[in-house]
């Protein structure tokens, strides 16, 4: 067992689970989507991205790419949130929260790809 691999896999899977946690719920109901969940998802995703830096294999490149996609989706979600509440001052209307959650949904897909790739790599290595 390799501690580096544990941390790496942990972060990637944790990024997915946190993201799912935020994503689950009625899409247009603000009560179902808590801001702390989004915050945690963004932080863990950032950590996952940084951990993937410097891996020169092809697998590493795809993992980094999917992580970057998730980052962009989540940051976009957070930006929409901040814009709606503090700039446009419309508050969390159903349409706003729906677009935030759907952006997070895109990040979920990217995270799923990451986890799938990780699983495939592990299976290939272990035979």
């Amino acid at each position: 067992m390799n501690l580096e691999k544990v941390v790496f896999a942990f972060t990637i899977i944790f990024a997915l689970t946190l993201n799912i946690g935020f994503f689950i719920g009625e899409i247009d109901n603000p009560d179902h989507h808590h801001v702390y969940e989004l915050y945690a998802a963004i932080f863990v995703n950032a950590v996952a991205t940084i951990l993937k830096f410097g891996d020169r294999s092809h697998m590493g490149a795809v993992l980094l790419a999917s992580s970057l996609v998730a980052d962009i989706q989540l940051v976009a979600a957070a930006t929409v949130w901040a814009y709606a509440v503090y700039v446009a001052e419309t508050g969390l209307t159903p349409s706003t929260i729906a677009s935030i959650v759907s952006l997070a949904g895109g990040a979920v897909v990217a995270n799923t790809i990451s986890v799938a790739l990780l699983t495939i790599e592990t299976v290939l290595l272990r035979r």
Partner: protein
Amino acid sequence: MNSMFFLILRQMRLPLLVLSAVYAVATLGLTLIPGRDPDGNLWYMDFFHAFYFISFMGTTTGFGEIPYPFSGGQRLWALVFIYITVATWIYTIGSLISLLQSESLRNALTHYRFERQVRNLSEPFYLICGYGDTGSKLVAALGTRLMPATVLELRQERLDDLYLSGNPIFMPALRCDASKPDNLVLAGLTHPLCQAVVAITNDNAANLHIAITAKVMNPDLKVICRADSHEVEANMASFGTDYIVDPYDTFAHNLGQVIYAPSQYLLARAFRGQNGDPIPTHLSFPDGRWIICGFGRFGSSLNKEMVDHGLPVQVIEANPTLPDLPADAVIGLGTEAVTLNEADVMNSVGIIAGTHDDSNNLSIMVTALQLNPELFTVVRQNVQANKLLFEHSKANIVMEPSRVVAEHIRTILVNRTIDDFLSLARAHDDTWARVLLKELRELATPGCMPATWEVNINLEEAHAVVRAIEQGRTVRISDLLMDHTDREQGLRCMPLFHTDPRGAFCLPPRETTLEIGDRLLFAGDEWAAFKMKWTLLNSTALWYVMTGEVEPQTSVGRWLNNLRAS
């Protein structure tokens, strides 16, 4: 470039992780600590404002407490994290700066830059390994002819010299071990435009390694090597090194030529020199007893050459255990009058100071001249830095190994045809050479070497001639020797050399017919070279020198011409 980017990313992983963790904790804490708004209501900071506050706090910008004045708890949290974020930033930026300054990254950067410069070379170029005394002379000679070269050298201070030498064209250079195959490939060993590899480092083993690498990686490439010992020479020749230059043998051979064929020697020197150099004057090499001081590689080569030509030689050598040392050799340095007298300097005609120590060589010469002022002196100069000293030493001949090698290689690289011509010329006797020298002297500015230029009969260099031959006309060398503005006037030049499929000829007869693919060498003044280009490239000019008529250029002109003819 790619690898460098990944290197930076990899090294920056930890600093970036720490930075994001600190920001995450600081932001989270601010949203959890209760505050009071101006009306006294309980108030929690939201993520948007918390992140905004932490961002400007972390960079010590300090816009104040927003949106409301902080509570004691919030201030305590901010107080702790001001120090933590600032320290984290210093750590991150410090890591980045030390990474950018690290030796490995800067090496990667220079290698990458050099690789790109070599890859982008769009003209034929030469790969020069070793930028010592020889290398610098060679690169300077290539530079004046605007021929690019890539340079590999071990010592940084030599490369600084290259950058400061003011070459008219840019020569990519890299500090690295040229005997490593990777570095040779980096410098263009497998580049399609690479013309030749020149191995002139001061390490025999490295030169050998470069030669074998070049022959294995790119068998079609010309390989030119300096070799200081006969074993290495034989080894290099065994795998087909094209040119092996041994400075001592070359010089000994030249000196031998001075003795038995002085005009041949002058001819070779004249053509190996640069344009506009004075034509070397005749050396009267005295016939009689000679003294050679130092029986190393140089001394033994000379000894062999002189004994072969029947000159009596007396050797002085400090080391009595050297192999092949003549039995009658005087043991000693040769710097003291005692040793020189023992070698009978009074009854000798010349002395060769050929040890590997410059001060000793000069001392030998000065002491010998004091004993016998009539001596002919040949002195070996080992270090380029002593050039001035030797110039003032009044020695008849100064032998500098690096110059001998540089001149030889320059002729091979810069003007292949001259080398071919000289090797053919060697077959002729000395009278032939003397007559030719006299003719050459009359061609150019008095006392100076005439310019030499090569003409290839192909579409690029002799468009008009090729067209004329294709139309079935006969073009002779004599046609090219006429002035295209007035064919009664000959150009001040002469053909030296002509190659065609039947063979190569020195001083070809002027009525020789030219064929496509022929190669010619001319000597004459620069103006003649310029005018000859007209005849070679311009059909009207060529037609005029061939027939004495000006061919009409337009349809109307041709029609009128035909009308008049009929």
